C-alpha cells in the first residue's frame, strides 16, 4: 500500500528549470511540491554543463531557444545578485579558422542581431590574438559577444531551490516518477513509495521529459540522450583564456569550447555522444581523447597535466531541435518544459516566468503578502581579502578552522551549508555548496573531516554517510565489527 500525498501543483524535476519555476510559483497562493529522482537539487544536466550564460547568437530566430535565451540572459545579472550567487560577464569569442568559417560566423552575427543580442561584432585576427594570446594563431577572425557570461549552474539551482523552500515549496528527493495518470481531481503521480494527487503538474524532468510526456499525451515524443564529457583544469594565477572560446558550430551543437569557470578553473568540453542509458554519466577513454584533439583547434598548446577531474552530463535532445514549453494538448493542467539542452541554463529564468504567468492566470492565483528573499552568503572565505577574513573569524570563530585547504573552505561554511534550507547531508551535496573537495586534491584531505561535521550536524553515523545518496556509502563498516564478521565466515 503506497502512501498518499496531495498538493495543488507538482513539479517533476529539481534541475535548473524546476527550481526556477518553483521559486516563481512560491510567491503565489498555491501549494507546490517538487519531486526529484536524484538525491539533491541539480543532479541531472544542471550539475554537469559548461556553466555559460549564452549571449543568444546561436539559436535560429523565431525558435523558443532564441526567445528564451535572449530573455534569460538579460535576467541573469539581477537574478544572481538577488540570490547572492556569482555571475561574471566575461564575454565570448567564436573563432573562424578559415574563410568558410568566416561565412558561418557572419551568419551567426546576423542571427544574433535578429535575436536582439547586443554588442556583437566581428573582430579580425590581430584583435583576437590581442584579447586572447593563447588562441590558435590560424584564427582568421572571430565573432565577439561581450554579453556572454559564466555562472556555477548548480550554485544557481541551489539558491533558487533554497529560496523556493523558504517560501513554502516542499522538495522531496529520491522520488523517481514511475507513472502519471489522470484522475477526477487532476493527475495522479506515482513513485516507488507514494501516490501524489495534484490539480496540475509541470514536467521538467530533463532526460525523462519525453517519457513522462508520453504517459499523458497521445502525441508521442522521442528524445535522445546526448552525453557531454568535460575536463576541468586546476586554478592558475594566469588562466589560459579569460573569455569563453567557441569553435564554429556544427550540427551536433556548439562543439568543444574552452572557458574560464566562475571559480577560476578552466573547463574544456563537451563531447556530444548519443547514448542509450540516460543515467550513464561515465567518461570514456575515447571521449576524453576527443576533447584533447578538438580543444587544440582553439588552444594548440592545450595541456591537460593540471587536469583535476573529468566528468560528464547528459542533456535531452528532441527531434524538433527546440524546447517544448507549455500545456500538453488535451491535458488541462499538465504543463511541460522539455527538450532542455543548451541554452537551457540561460533560458530557465525566462521560461519559469512565462510558465508561472500562465499558471497564475489559469488558476487565478494571488500574490503572497510576505515573501522571504533568500540570499547566499556573499563571499566565500577563499575569495575574501585579509581584512574580510579577519572580520569573518571575529564574527564566527569557526572560520578559523580551514577544512578544505585547496579551496580554503572553513568549518563555519561547511556547517552553514549543511543547514541551508535544503539540507546537505552527503559529501557531494556539501562539496557543491561550499567547494570543499573540488580543488586539486579532490577531497583526499577533507573528506573524513567533512564526514565528522556531517555526523555532528545530522546525527548520521559515518557508515551512513554517502558520497551522493542511494547506496554510495563511503565506508563499509566499523573496523572491529568488520573483522568479527569475517572471522565468522
Amino acid at each position, binding site marked *: 500500500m503506497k502512501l498518499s500525498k496531495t498538493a495543488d501543483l507538482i513539479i517533476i524535476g529539481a534541475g535548473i528549470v524546476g527550481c526556477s519555476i518553483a521559486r516563481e510559483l512560491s510567491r503565489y497562493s498555491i501549494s507546490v511540491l517538487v519531486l526529484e529522482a536524484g538525491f539533491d537539487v541539480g543532479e541531472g544536466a544542471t550539475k554537469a554543463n559548461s556553466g555559460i550564460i549564452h549571449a543568444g547568437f546561436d539559436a535560429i530566430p523565431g525558435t523558443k531557444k532564441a526567445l528564451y535565451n535572449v530573455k534569460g540572459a538579460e535576467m541573469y545579472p539581477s537574478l544572481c545578485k538577488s540570490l547572492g550567487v556569482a555571475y561574471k560577464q566575461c564575454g565570448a569569442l567564436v573563432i573562424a579558422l578559415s574563410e568558410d568559417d568566416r561565412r558561418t560566423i557572419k551568419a551567426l552575427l546576423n542571427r544574433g542581431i535578429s535575436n536582439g543580442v547586443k554588442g556583437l561584432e566581428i573582430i579580425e585576427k590581430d584583435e583576437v590574438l590581442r584579447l586572447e594570446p593563447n588562441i590558435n594563431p590560424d584564427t582568421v577572425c572571430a565573432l565577439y559577444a561581450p554579453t556572454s557570461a559564466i555562472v556555477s549552474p548548480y550554485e544557481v539551482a541551489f539558491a533558487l531551490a533554497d529560496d523556493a523552500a523558504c517560501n513554502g515549496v516542499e522538495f522531496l528527493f529520491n522520488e523517481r516518477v514511475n507513472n502519471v495518470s489522470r484522475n477526477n481531481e487532476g493527475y495522479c503521480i506515482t513513485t516507488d513509495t507514494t501516490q501524489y494527487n495534484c490539480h496540475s503538474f509541470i514536467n521538467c524532468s530533463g532526460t525523462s521529459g519525453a517519457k513522462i510526456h508520453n504517459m499523458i499525451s497521445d502525441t508521442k515524443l522521442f528524445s535522445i540522450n546526448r552525453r557531454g564529457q568535460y575536463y*576541468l583544469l586546476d586554478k592558475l594565477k594566469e588562466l589560459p583564456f579569460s573569455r569563453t572560446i567557441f569553435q564554429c558550430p556544427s550540427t551536433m551543437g556548439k562543439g568543444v569550447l574552452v572557458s574560464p569557470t566562475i571559480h577560476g578553473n578552466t573547463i574544456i568540453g563537451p563531447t556530444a555522444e548519443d547514448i542509450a542509458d540516460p*543515467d550513464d*554519466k*561515465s*567518461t*570514456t*577513454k575515447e*571521449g*576524453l581523447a576527443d576533447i584533447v584533439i578538438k580543444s587544440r583547434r582553439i588552444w594548440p598548446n592545450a595541456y*591537460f597535466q*593540471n*587536469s*583535476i*577531474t*573529468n*566528468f560528464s552530463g547528459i542533456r535531452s535532445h528532441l527531434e524538433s531541435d527546440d524546447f517544448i514549453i507549455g500545456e500538453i494538448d488535451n491535458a488541462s493542467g499538465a504543463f511541460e518544459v522539455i527538450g532542455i539542452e543548451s541554452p537551457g541554463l540561460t533560458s530557465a529564468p525566462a521560461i519559469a516566468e512565462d510558465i508561472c504567468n500562465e499558471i497564475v492566470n489559469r488558476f487565478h492565483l494571488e500574490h503572497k503578502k510576505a515573501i522571504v528573499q533568500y540570499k547566499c552568503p556573499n563571499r566565500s572565505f577563499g575569495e575574501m581579502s*585579509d*581584512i574580510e*577574513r*579577519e572580520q569573518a*573569524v*571575529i564574527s564566527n*570563530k569557526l*572560520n*578559523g*578552522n*580551514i577544512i578544505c*585547504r*585547496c579551496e*580554503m573552505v572553513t568549518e563555519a561554511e561547511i556547517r552553514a551549508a549543511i543547514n541551508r534550507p535544503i539540507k546537505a547531508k552527503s559529501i557531494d551535496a556539501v562539496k557543491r555548496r561550499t567547494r570543499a573537495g573540488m580543488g*586539486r*586534491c*579532490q*577531497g*583526499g*584531505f577533507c*573528506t*573524513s573531516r567533512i564526514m565528522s561535521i556531517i555526523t555532528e550536524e545530522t546525527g548520521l553515523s*559515518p*557508515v551512513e554517510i*554517502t*558520497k*551522493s*545518496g*542511494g*547506496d*554510495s*556509502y*563511503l*565506508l*563499509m*563498516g*566499523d*573496523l*572491529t565489527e*568488520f*573483522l568479527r*564478521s*569475517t*572471522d565468522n565466515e
Partner: protein
Amino acid sequence: MSKERVDVLIIGAGPAGLAAAISAKEHGIDSVLVLERENQPGGILKQCIHNGFGLRRFNEELTGPEYAQRDIDRANELGILIQCNTSVLSVSCDRKVTCVSVEYGFQVIECKAIILAMGCRERPRGAIGIPGTRCAGIYTAGAAQRFVNLEGYIPGKRIVILGSGDIGLIMARRLTLQGARVLACVEVMPYSSGLNRNIVQCLQDFNIPLLLNHTVVDIKGKERIGSVTVAKVNDLREPISGTEIEFDCDTLLISCGLIPENELSRGAGVVISPVTNGAIVNEKYETSVEGVFACGNVLHVHDLVDYVSSESYRAGKAASEYVMGECESDNMIIEVKDGYGVRGVVPQMIHKHVDDSVSLMFRPTKVFHNCEVVIKSDMETIYRKKVRVLTPGESSIIQMNSDIIMGINSKVITVDIE
C-alpha cells in the same frame, strides 16, 4: 590586525618541521614557532602505524607514531612552541605569514626566516585521468589509511590498488590483515615505485599479485564502484586492447605518486622545479626567496623519513645561521644538473665555498644494475661511486666533501649514471 614577530617560523609539524625546529633551537635561535594545521604534531606519521621507520637514524625499527614521538619529546624538552589547529593562508616574499585558528583568530607573523615543511599530497584520480563513473569507493591510499588507522572504519571489502607506491603497498597488507580482500596491485611501469621490502612484506607475503605494465582503463558502478577494468600497456604506457581483465571490487585505492604541496611557496614567489615539483634550493636549502628555506617532502618526495629528518635538521641549522647573519655573501654558485639516468637532484645549486660536505639526493630514472654514479665538472670527472643496484623507488644519496666542491672550476656540474 595584530602583528607578531618570530625569528624562525616553521610551517608544518610533521617530521620535517619538527627536525627543522629542533635544529634551529639547538643552533641558538630562541624564538622558534611551528604552525600545524592538525590538532597534534607528527604529520602523516600519525597514521603510519606500521613499523620500519628509523632504521638509519636510530638503528631500530619504530612505528610512525613512535618515530614522531621522539621528535615531539625533543621539541617539548627544548620548549619549542607548536601552535596546532592553525592553517597558514599565505606567505609573502618579505616573510610575512598570515594564518587562522579558532583559538587565536587571524594572525600576521613577521619572520626573520621561514622554513617550508608542508609535506606533500597524493595524486588523485582526476590528475591521472582515469575514465569511468564518479562513484563512491575511490580513495587515495593515504585517505584510506586515515579511515582505517585513525578513525576505525573499513573503506571497502574487495579492493584493487592502482599504483605501487609505498602507501598503497602498506595498505594492501593493512586491509588484508583487517579482513578485506586485496585482489591486485596494478602498476603501469615495468617496476614498482615502492621500496623493495614493502613489495616482499606487503604483497608477496600475502599472495597479492603485482601486475606490472598494467593500468586501470575503466571504472564501473553507479553509486558505489562495482568493478574496474585493468589492461596491459605497451612501451608507450598505452593500454593494449584485448588484454582487459575485469575485477569485481567495491573499492579502488590510488597510490600513484605524491606531489609536494607548494601552493604557499608559489604565493611567496618561490621558484619551483618542474622536475621535483619542489623549490629550487642551494645546499643550505634556501629557496629563490631570501630567508625562505624548504625541506622534507615539500622540497622533493623522499623514500625514507630518516632522510627527511636529516635534511630538515640541516635546513634548520642553515636558517639559524641566516638569522644570526652568518651567511657569506660573496660566494660563487655552482649549478647541479640531472644527467643521464638521473632525475631531480637536490640541491640544484651549491656555493663553491662550503664548510661541510654536501649531500646530493636524486632518483634514478629506471632500474640500473652494477653501475656508477659520476659527477662531472666540464668534461672532468670529480666524483665516482660504484653502486650495485639503483631503483626509482629508492633515493640515491651522494656525499661530496667540501674540498671536492671547492676544487670545482666550472659553473655547472652534472650527475650521470654510467
